[in-house]
């Protein structure tokens, strides 16, 4: 056929046919272009969308590892509770923002509707607790203490409760064995925030919105070990959400268990004794201020000398760590952090700062020996010492004549140290310091580890300070403007404060004679923490090694197969000879037998011949406040350091408490006799608790309850083999999770019964009813 029309075909038709052809082909070209645009240009984007489309994530939270004491008693573990939670996203979808649902929920739970509403609102700068601080996409727990009928009611009438879930969940529990609360050392958990999720997104351990993380204490410092990793199963689903297959599955890995060196029994005694000592101090009259001691805070640390392991660490005021579980109420939050709370969350043992008072004298003694003053030389212990028209009195203005340094420690003679400090100050150039001044007293404090953190395995330890020349200069530079301004305001008739300001303004950068003199007996600007002093006295007791204190003793994998022991590490040796060490040790024994602490020990029936005790008392003065009581003691194996802020004298306020702690540890009776069967911890616990084959850690229990320590037997954890602390569930498939969860709860039955929480069968009903 030819292209030339033979008949019936006008050129108009031909032209129009070509037009049709062009039009039609351009339609197809358009499709091709659009196809390229979607598939090649934006293909990646759509691939992502397609992935999000057909993959659903199911998160299985990891069981957090338990924190155990040295004998395997759980200090922190998990229990199953019926948690009722609300989904904000679901509530917000409702016409009234979920108001009606929350109202109904409050009725069922017998809670105040306002409280329920507050619990599900989001925290921001203006919103006070209670509020939800976690991810807004995560179910917000309204209560973790629902009764089974309440949970069943919510589930059976699910149409009345859209967005509300009632499910058994593992929640953290701090069982306080023997009443050992250990709150500050354990720390607490709270839900992870969106910012934290974002921050950790690309790290090795990303968070899931459901995660809770440790906020303080051991929960925080060992968080990555305890937390484990949540299991995420990604299911391929079709358009109706039906599961077509598993894309990826990561089993939940339970967290490791942390065995600590804490002995719950000793911890309980320490807490109780500290509390009683503070209560007692509040009944004592303080002559200096004309009112009773306030005893507003205190801390005690019990440490193993040879390892730096912490056997007990108590901080007062205390709080109940269980308050954090399942979201904290507004009232409780205010109680813990409010202005009038006295900040019980602070761990005074590592965060409490005070001048050390006379327990600092071991450092001054070491410095004096280092500076060339023989330990057994003769030093004048006069009742007072005058320098530059200023009189520095001995404690209670007592004089002891010519004594050696050992005796000066025993009787805590201030004037001996005043003289030595003044001499050294002058040697170093006095007000016009020489270049390369020895500064023995300051150097020694640094060498003893003061002015920096001990490296304890707890977060937010404070470093304290050694008020040396450098510090003085920095401090002056930071404050001189304010001082000088205040001094100017004084004009012709300056007040006392203004006089001080004037002096500070003019010469605050200088180390004055009075500064050095005060410093030598631990008064003035020196600040130390109880853990620092415990480390120092433990070093005196172990031959001179300054250990990094540890609470964590071993990290045990959930299957029990891997046990990583946390070995003691040190941050230095005391820079003194063995001889000096020995001499000081003898002097500190003297303190306990005939010195300032004798009335609490040697002269009060302490069996010094069997258990050699060393002690040093301290009473630190604080401007505008009552004196801080310090008592630092050690035996061959243990160091006990106690302090009470505004509590009175060292031996007076802290003496009986420290004595009682030793009594309990060594089984010393009131008459001084030793009953070994009553001794809680006569030797450091070297061995780790037994780990059974299935990985559970078997708590070592006392055969019969022991006097004062068994006051709360009901609080003993459910540590039977069927419900081991930090029980771990073997990996579960999503289909069997319901039953497995129920089975896991079975083990906790006793606990529930005791608490009036549901027995396992009821929980099983609830758990089996819904599969996530």
């Amino acid at each position: 056929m030819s292209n030339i029309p033979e008949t019936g075909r006008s050129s108009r038709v031909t032209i129009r046919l070509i037009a049709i052809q062009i039009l039609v082909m351009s339609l197809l070209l358009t499709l091709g272009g659009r196809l390229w645009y979607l598939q090649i240009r934006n293909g990646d984007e759509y691939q992502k969308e397609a992935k999000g489309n057909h993959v659903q994530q199911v998160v299985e939270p990891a069981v957090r590892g338990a924190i155990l004491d040295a004998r395997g008693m759980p200090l922190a573990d998990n229990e199953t509770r019926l948690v009722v939670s609300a989904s904000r996203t679901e509530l917000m979808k409702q016409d009234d923002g979920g108001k009606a649902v929350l109202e109904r929920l409050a009725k069922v739970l017998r809670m105040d509707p306002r409280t329920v509403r507050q619990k599900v609102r989001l925290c921001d700068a203006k919103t006070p607790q209670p509020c939800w601080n976690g991810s807004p996409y995560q179910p917000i727990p309204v209560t973790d203490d629902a009764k089974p009928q309440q949970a069943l009611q919510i589930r059976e009438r699910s149409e009345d409760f859209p967005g509300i879930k009632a499910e058994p969940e593992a929640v953290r529990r701090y069982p306080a064995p023997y009443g050992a609360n250990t709150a500050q050392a354990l720390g607490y958990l709270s839900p992870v925030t969106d910012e934290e999720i974002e921050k950790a997104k690309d790290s090795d351990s990303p968070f899931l919105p459901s995660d809770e993380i440790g906020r303080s204490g051991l929960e925080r410092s060992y968080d990555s070990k305890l937390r484990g990793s949540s299991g995420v199963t990604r299911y391929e689903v079709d358009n109706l959400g039906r599961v077509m297959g598993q894309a990826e599955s990561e089993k939940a890995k339970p967290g490791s268990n942390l065995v600590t060196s804490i002995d719950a029994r000793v911890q309980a005694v320490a807490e109780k004794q500290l509390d009683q000592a503070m209560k007692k101090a509040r009944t004592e009259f303080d002559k200096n201020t004309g009112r009773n001691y306030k005893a507003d805070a205190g801390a005690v640390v019990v440490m193993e000398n040879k390892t730096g392991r912490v056997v007990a660490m108590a901080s007062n005021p205390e709080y109940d760590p269980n308050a954090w579980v399942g979201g904290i109420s507004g009232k409780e939050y205010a109680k813990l952090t409010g202005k009038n709370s006295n900040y019980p969350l602070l761990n005074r043992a590592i965060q409490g700062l005070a001048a050390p008072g006379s327990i600092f004298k071991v450092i001054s003694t070491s410095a004096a020996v280092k500076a060339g003053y023989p330990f057994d030389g003769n030093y004048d212990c006069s009742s007072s010492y005058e320098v530059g028209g200023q009189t520095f009195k001995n404690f209670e203005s007592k004089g002891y004549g010519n004594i050696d340094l050992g005796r000066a420690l025993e009787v805590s003679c201030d004037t001996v140290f005043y003289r030595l400090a003044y001499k050294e100050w002058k040697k170093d150039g006095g007000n016009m310091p020489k270049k390369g001044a020895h500064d023995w007293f300051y150097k020694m404090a640094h060498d003893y580890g003061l002015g920096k953190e001990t490296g304890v395995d707890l977060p937010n330890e404070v470093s304290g300070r050694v008020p040396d020349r450098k510090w003085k200069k920095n401090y002056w530079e930071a404050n001189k403007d304010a001082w000088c301004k205040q001094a100017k305001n004084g004009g012709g008739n300056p007040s006392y404060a203004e006089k001080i300001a004037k002096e500070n303004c003019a010469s605050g950068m200088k180390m004055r004679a009075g500064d050095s003199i005060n410093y030598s007996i631990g008064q003035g600007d020196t600040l130390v923490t109880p853990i620092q002093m415990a480390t120092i006295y433990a070093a005196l007791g172990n031959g001179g090694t300054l250990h990094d204190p540890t609470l964590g003793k071993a990290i045990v994998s959930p299957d029990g197969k891997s046990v990583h022991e946390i070995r003691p590490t040190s941050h230095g040796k005391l820079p003194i000879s063995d001889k000096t060490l020995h001499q000081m040790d003898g002097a500190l024994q003297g303190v306990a037998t005939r010195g300032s602490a004798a009335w609490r020990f040697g002269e009060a029936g302490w069996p010094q011949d069997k258990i050699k005790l060393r002690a040093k008392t301290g009473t630190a003065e604080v401007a505008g406040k009552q004196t801080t009581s310090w008592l630092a003691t050690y035996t061959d194996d243990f160091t006990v350091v106690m302090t009470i802020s505004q509590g009175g004298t060292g031996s007076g306020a802290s003496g009986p408490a420290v004595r009682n702690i030793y009594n309990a540890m060594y089984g010393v009776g009131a008459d001084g006799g030793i009953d070994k069967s009553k001794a809680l911890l006569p030797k450091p616990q070297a061995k780790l608790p037994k780990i059974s084959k299935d990985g559970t850690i078997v708590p070592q229990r006392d055969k019969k309850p022991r006097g004062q320590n068994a006051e709360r037997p009901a609080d003993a954890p459910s540590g039977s083999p069927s419900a081991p602390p930090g029980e771990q569930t073997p990996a579960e498939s999503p289909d069997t999770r319901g039953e497995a969860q129920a089975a896991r709860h079975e083990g906790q039955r006793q606990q529930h019964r005791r608490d009036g929480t549901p027995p396992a069968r009821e929980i099983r009903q609830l758990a089996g009813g819904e599969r996530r």
Partner: protein
Amino acid sequence: MSSRSFALGGYGPRRRSLWDRLTARDSVVWRLDWIMLLSGAVLAVIGSLLVYSATRNRTELNQGDPQYFLVRHVISLIIGIGLMIGTVWLGHRRLRSAVPVLYGVTVLLAVCVLTPLGATINGSRAWLNLGGGFTVQPAEFIKITVILGMAMLLAAKVDAGDQEHPDHRTVLQALGVAALPVLVILMMPDLGSVMVLVFIVLAVLLASGASNRWIIGLCLAGALGAVLVWALGLLDEYQINRFAAFANPALDPSGVGYNTNQARIAIGSGGLTGKGLFEGTQTTGQFVPEQQTDFVFTVAGEELGFIGAGLILVLLGILIWRACRIARESTELYSTIVAAGVIAWFAFQAFENIGMTLGIMPVAGLPLPFVSYGGTSMFAVWIAVGLLQSIRTQKPIAA
């Protein structure tokens, strides 16, 4: 068959065997447009695979038999090819005399759809229940009979040599031939088919050489009609929603915009090479509704990627290109108009169908020619191919 085919064959000496006649140098077989047939065949094969991929998991549709749709699709395809052969055998010219009857039958069938015999799917009452699970969509056949009917009227005087171009009266009559079924289909309503018919009418008028005034007038009338339909609220809510989703692709991806959004995700996620046949997550997850019929192109886009989906476009392009050649080479106006009508039908229906999956056209229920599942559409398309082949193979009547 042989004696019958003698009667129908019409060419060549009578005594030659069928084989001889088919293989002879001047036989129909040699003169067939094999490039077009091959393109159609490859499209049909790809279509069968895509239909299978889209339906093998749809247990709620395939009654538990993964091959349920595939088998039916292949049977339709075989019948369709048979119809094509039959059409070639008969020849478009011989069919010319039967056009009024065919037209009447198809329009009658379409009217039946509006009676209780009709079945409603996706808001359109466009199917006729034949019983036994078979349905037929008369609108598909109407596309053919409208082309044939209009061509017959418009070409009659021109092909007879009485006129150079059809006169106004003829054009008006031809429009009347189109208008009746369009009205019936509008009542179903099957907007997709109406749109295709409008484009067919436009192409037919263009190819007939009708006055430009008619072309412009028709365009204006089409636009006015669209405005009227919109303004008078003649559209159902689902139809308005489809337009809304088209105008705003981000609209309500879980509701109104669900189809188009999921279709776009399916195609876009295919990338260059696709996820592999039967490996598409959107397809196996059944995220795209009507995937074996109106949205079959999404299976290609997702599983075969730009290469596979592009191949479908190329094959359609080749097929339509060859059809255009046939239209241009035809010496009779009747044949030219028929070819042009088929071209407009294939091209616009493919554009609308693929365009809606790509989000450049609003959603309308139209199958993709050669590829989609659906018997009636398959039959109609292959009959149309038969018409084109017939135009190519049949020598013009001597002028």
